[in-house]
């Protein structure tokens, strides 16, 4: 585990594969495991690492930048300069890397050891899926700037808040959908195998797992909204 060579296989990709994986991740409605047994698709952690890293940075820039813009454009007494809060960057790192590592880890541990799935979900593949679907969060970081330019917090506080909630919820839904549709096929198959053909209990188990994932993702979305998408001036 501590040798370099152990990790080398996880970074083995080229540009075309990378772009292709981004494209597949951006589609919320396809499944990542379809016809997967004999594809030569590489499971790698480069995508997770860099896309999540870029997202952290963009979230921080978006939050700070839109607050600065709001301060500059819409606040009349110019006596209070904007105070940067770099704890937001640390919070961003913990939130994004944490969510994208901990939830796949819990899923893997739960399904492999607690429920004992016959075809276990490989941990790196789940982390990779969660990493690539983060690309769907990118658009709202840009939209945040636009919203702040056009709507002032002082005059239309309620509408600004409402709009911010809407965009975060839409993004959260799309990413959640993307994550879950990619994982649902395998989970369902495994539940069926576990239940030995008893469809109703398999469905119940499947729904429980999917429900837990949905709840985790919803909590994550709310945290993102609170941390990054409130305008405070």
């Amino acid at each position, binding site marked *: 585990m501590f040798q370099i060579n152990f*990790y*080398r296989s996880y970074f083995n990709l*080229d*540009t075309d594969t*990378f772009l292709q994986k981004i494209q597949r991740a951006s589609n919320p409605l396809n499944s990542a495991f379809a016809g997967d047994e004999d594809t030569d698709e590489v499971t790698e952690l*480069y995508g997770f690492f860099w896309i999540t890293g870029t997202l952290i940075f963009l979230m921080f820039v978006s939050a700070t930048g839109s607050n600065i813009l709001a301060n500059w454009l819409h606040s009349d007494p110019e006596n209070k300069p904007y105070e940067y809060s770099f704890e937001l960057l640390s919070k961003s790192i913990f939130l994004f890397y944490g969510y994208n590592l901990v939830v796949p880890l819990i899923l893997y541990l739960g399904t492999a050891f607690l429920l004992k799935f016959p075809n276990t979900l490989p941990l790196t593949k789940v982390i990779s899926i969660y990493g690539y679907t983060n690309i769907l969060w990118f658009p709202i970081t840009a939209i945040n700037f636009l919203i702040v330019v056009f709507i002032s917090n002082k005059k239309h506080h309620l509408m600004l808040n409402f709009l911010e909630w809407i965009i975060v919820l839409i993004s959260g839904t799309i990413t959640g959908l993307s994550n879950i549709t990619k994982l649902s096929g395998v989970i369902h198959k495994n539940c069926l195998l576990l239940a030995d053909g008893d469809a109703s209990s398999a469905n119940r188990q499947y729904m429980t797992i999917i429900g837990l994932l949905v709840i985790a993702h919803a909590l994550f979305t709310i945290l993102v909204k609170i941390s990054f998408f409130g305008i405070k001036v």
Partner: protein
Amino acid sequence: MQFYQSNYANSYQPQGGNISGSGLGAMDNSFGANIDVSGVMGNGELTPGLLAAFGTGGYPGEPPLLEELGINFQHIKDKTRAVLNPLKHDIDPEIMNDSDLAGPILFVLLFGTLLLLSGKVQFGYIYGVGVCGTVGLHYLFKFMSNDVQIDLVRSTSVIGYCLLPLVLISVLGVVISLDNMLGYLLSAFAVLWCTYSASGFFVAVLKLHNARPLVAYPLCMFYTVFAFMVIFVEKADVKVQQS
């Protein structure tokens, strides 16, 4: 005076029989005997004597100092030229194997000095970001390469050489302020130039296939931090005593 076990035969015999008695050993009786300061005694020893100590002779067959240190000016010039024209693709592979750190250290010191001349004392940050970034990039590229082993010295060498366009921008930063649109454009262009040449080097050294943008992205972020140092850092306050 024999501090080291020398592999050169000590063929100098003292005249008297008092080697063991005298504390000065071989130097006692020799002040008049060896005023030859041409340097090479002919039997593998350093020329003893006060005048020879200030001369330029040394051990016979000793290589010149620059060669011993591994600083090869011709290679430094060639590699600098290779960075400056990243569009030319005929880099001699021999110079790629010579991973020297003298060029990069020179460039980094030049960068720090030019920033100092424009009022920004950033040596600590340059060192810190440089070391952390280079180590991180090195391990990332080690993960990404499959057959080729790369070590930290070569990584640092490539990254250091490709800092040259940013050094050129900091030359400009001495005379004009770069905190305006022109400055941003020039710095963006320099960062892209650095990234282009560094990713070219790494793709060639690591023999990667079709992975140039993936290698370029981390390098771009690394060089952007240096560009920020050139543009955005505030000048140190200088208090002038009115006498």
